[in-house]
């Protein structure tokens, strides 16, 4: 069909700004069908799922929300998130990863290793991985500090132009111009992130480190997130990844330990629009760097989604 595009005779920006409040303030009855769905329609969309069966009914990444991923340095936040990104792609949810602490090549190699289920994926598998992820997984080719306003613009671009459904910022503190103790600017930056999520429907995942603790043997909570205390207040969901270092140490030193104890915990400390909060035990598969939902010698096939996602 031919398209006829002509000059616009309306000041579109001015019109949209002038009518914004009128559009946003709506009567309660507008939402009644959605409220009925909320209580009675089990088919109603629940959000994207994580890779594990046991998280499918308790943790979901709903559109327009912000999830904070926290945990101590080296406890596997990025690995759990990488594994989750593969599962999001398999649900046809386009992902963009802005990993400011790692080269895109390394970020992708780690995710590819998880998807391959082995230590060193074959060339053939890597090509298949490329085909499967294709345009569904985007990477922001930038390392080091990025100005906060540039990051906000990037998020908006990804949502609008690239139809990204999940944006991963790893990590929050790498967004420049904001000092560790500049709580006011951190709050403002996160407020902007929440606005982008809410306005665009994109789910934004933010990685933030926990404060240095006396030891790593007990899991940190949402109060231990580095930076402003308001960070956890502003976001919709808080997930903490904690590795069971005492079990690892005992195993490494050949001491007695309980293999049934999990290698890691995924702790949901907050879920604004979901009822569940609690701990998901996970077991680490060293070759693939995957986290499994049970102690197993075999990694998960991330390309085969469980039926509970539907």
């Amino acid at each position, binding site marked *: *069909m031919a*398209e006829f595009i002509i000059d616009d*005779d309306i000041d*579109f920006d001015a019109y949209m700004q002038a009518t914004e409040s009128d559009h946003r303030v709506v009567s309660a009855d507008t939402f009644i069908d959605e409220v009925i*769905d909320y209580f009675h329609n089990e088919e109603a969309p629940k959000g994207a799922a994580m890779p594990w069966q046991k998280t499918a009914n308790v943790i979901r990444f709903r559109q327009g929300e912000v999830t904070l991923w926290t945990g101590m340095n080296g406890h596997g936040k990025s690995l759990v998130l990488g594994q989750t990104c593969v599962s999001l792609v398999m649900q046809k949810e386009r992902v963009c990863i802005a990993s400011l602490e790692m080269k895109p090549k390394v970020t992708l190699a780690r995710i590819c290793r998880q998807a391959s289920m082995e230590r060193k994926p074959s060339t053939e598998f890597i090509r298949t991985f490329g085909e499967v992820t294709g345009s569904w997984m985007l990477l922001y080719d930038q390392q080091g500090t990025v100005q906060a306003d540039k990051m906000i613009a990037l998020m908006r671009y990804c949502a609008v132009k690239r139809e990204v459904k999940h944006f991963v910022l790893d990590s929050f503190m790498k967004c420049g111009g904001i000092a560790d103790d500049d709580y006011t600017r951190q709050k403002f930056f996160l407020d902007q992130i929440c606005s982008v999520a809410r306005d665009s429907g994109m789910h934004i995942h933010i990685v933030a480190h926990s404060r240095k603790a006396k030891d790593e043997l007990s899991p940190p909570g949402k109060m231990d997130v580095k930076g402003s205390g308001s960070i956890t207040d502003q976001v919709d969901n808080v997930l903490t990844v904690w590795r069971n270092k005492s079990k690892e140490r005992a195993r490494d030193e050949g001491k007695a330990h309980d293999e049934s104890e999990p290698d890691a915990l995924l702790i949901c400390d907050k879920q604004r629009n979901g009822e569940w909060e609690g701990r998901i035990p996970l077991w680490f598969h060293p070759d693939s760097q995957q986290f499994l939902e049970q102690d197993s010698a075999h990694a998960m096939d991330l390309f085969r989604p469980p039926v509970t996602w539907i």
Partner: protein
Amino acid sequence: MRADQNEIVGVKRLIAMREAGNKPEIVFVLMTSSARLTRIDFAIEPSANIARLDFRPFVGLNVVLMARTAGDRPRAAFRKLCEVADSVVVCFTDKLPEGDYGWRFVRGTPGLRRVGDAPGAAMETA
């Protein structure tokens, strides 16, 4: 589209076009799902909450709204479009063989006009 992302499918392209100072001479809004859309086609998914949809990007445009059958949802979408568009024609595809298949609104003229080939189709209505 999911109900919690309540938006007219494809509208972001229209917003980008208009922010760049351009507009299509005519657009088509289809009340359907899984539509293959061109730059001037937009879709309202069956799960969308019409009352919450933002029709403002259609301000000043000539719009053809197509739905399979008449009903509350096309009526609500038609009313919302009439608030912003210069003209709106609503067509019901199930009625096409009958020759009298919809209604037309033109800003600045009173009432609605029937659309179609049947006798009296262009009759002015209240």
